[in-house]
């Protein structure tokens, strides 16, 4: 079981007058096969937290640990832009992040390409695919390493609403089949309510302001009144912490 522990995490960028506090004294624990969303307005440190968790950035202060059954956990990452190597084919993009290139590994990559409906696009270059397809390659890549933890940073925010909706459904299915720990960053409250079991609300200045539980069964239907109520409650939380801009 994957365990994420964050203790007294503090992150600053720049020095002197340029100093920006991106995260301030964040403490949290995430364990098991859960889908956790991190929600907050732009600039409140969501990406920074994910980058520290995945090792792209180092904290100014504090500690993070990500383990799986006591050993360091393997992580996958889906970015806001697909971040594919434009000069490698779709299949080679998946192979790039693998430990080896054995037949079994190739078969696994093919399996995840099939899962995102791109089984026949392995030989294409990313530039030959649409934005939605590129993002699905990014999702297949993250799943293909069979990570214990999956980090996703606003993966659907660049896509049109219709494509984003179908990808959310797809992600939900894949998550339920593979039962990974997912940490999903979004600024879209509706998206968080639709997908997650737990919502961490971040406020300006990088503070963790609230920790909400969503116990409705999946798949969640936006027209279900309970979902609408939950969404309204999350917005109310933002009002209480003063994160909603009043102009």
């Amino acid at each position, binding site marked *: 079981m994957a365990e994420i522990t964050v203790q007294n995490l503090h992150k600053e960028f720049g020095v002197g007058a340029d100093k920006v506090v991106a995260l301030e004294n964040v403490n949290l624990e995430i364990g098991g096969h859960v889908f956790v969303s991190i929600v907050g307005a732009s600039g409140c440190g969501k990406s920074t937290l994910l*980058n520290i968790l*995945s*090792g*792209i950035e180092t904290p100014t202060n504090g500690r993070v640990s990500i383990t799986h059954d006591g050993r360091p956990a*393997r*992580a*996958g*990452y889906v*970015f806001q*832009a697909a*971040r594919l*190597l*434009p*000069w*490698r084919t779709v299949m080679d993009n998946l192979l*790039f*992040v693998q430990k080896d290139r054995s037949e079994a590994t190739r078969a696994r990559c093919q399996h995840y390409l099939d899962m*995102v*409906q791109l089984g026949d*696009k392995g030989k*294409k*270059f*990313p*530039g*030959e*695919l*649409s934005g*939605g*397809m590129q993002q*699905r390659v990014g999702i297949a*890549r993250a799943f293909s*390493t069979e990570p214990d933890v999956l*980090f996703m940073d606003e993966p659907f925010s660049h896509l049109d609403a*219709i*494509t984003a909706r*179908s*990808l959310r*459904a*797809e992600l939900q*299915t894949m998550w339920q089949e593979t039962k990974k720990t997912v940490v999903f960053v979004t600024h879209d409250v509706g998206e968080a309510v639709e997908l997650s079991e737990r919502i961490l609300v971040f406020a300006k200045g990088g503070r963790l302001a609230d920790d909400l539980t969503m116990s409705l069964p999946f798949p969640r239907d936006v*027209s279900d009144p309970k979902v609408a109520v939950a969404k309204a409650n999350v917005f109310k939380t933002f009002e209480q912490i003063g994160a909603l801009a009043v102009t």
Partner: protein
Amino acid sequence: MSGGTVVTARVARGLKSPLAGRLTFPLVCLAVWLLTIEVVTAIWPFAVDVLPQPTEVAGFMWDEVTGNTLAPRNMYATFWISLQRLGIGMVIAMLLGTVIGLGMGLSRAVNAFFNDWVVAILAMPNLAWALFCSLAFGFGITGPIVTVVLTGIPYVIINIREGVRNAPSDLYDMARAFGVTRGHTIRHVLIPSLMPFMFAAGRYAFALGWKGLVVAEVFGGQDGAGWTIKFWYDAHRAHGVIGYALLFVIFALVFEKFMFDRLSRYFFKWRPASDVELVEERFDPAGAGAQKVTAGPPPRRDVTTETRRPDDG
């Protein structure tokens, strides 16, 4: 509109096209050439011996192309000799320039160390390199090769440094997030991202290297294209000098186009050509997108009152 005006319009349009402009250029050159000969010989009749007629130059070029030459080697052997020198010089310039450019792109100290020298080498006319190298290395192949290296290397350095500074940091972060090894990242991210810059560097080094090489061969060579131009000069054959230089320019241009187009197609096949159609397709779990094609527009529905969801139907 009558047939006559259509034809006239078409001819007028044809004359304004870029192709017509291109084809007109050599004709204008030829006219200027002939006119100059007329004017100069009218003023100074003895110039006839010095000013070559276009027909003389063409005849000379034809003889060279058919291998019928008075020079010690025919055109093909000579160009092959020069090409080898250019190749060796370019490989050295690319290797050395890549190492220095990488260093300059990655480290401010290394950049500060080399920067002024790169600018100085860049500003030096290649005639100076050619003269210096033939003095320093005497007659032989070293002088021409060193001249090619010195002419080409600043372009390689500057391009590689630019490539390193334009490093795709988002891809490096991606590689780090997935725990990809350093060697793997260099091979699949760094080197491919530098390829367009290397390519530009190679093209510059090649185009300028040719010129440096020819000048160096004039002064310090015992054979090669530059030396052969000098050979015709020493033999007082103006049509030989012009004809040989023209042949050489044509050879260099054709070779450049052939080689770099090939390489470009090989290295940049991942770049979507403008005519490649983007494959647009959506995930569609239930195949709901495969709607039946019905005649006429769909009936209007009021979704604010409808209780049935479209997925149900």
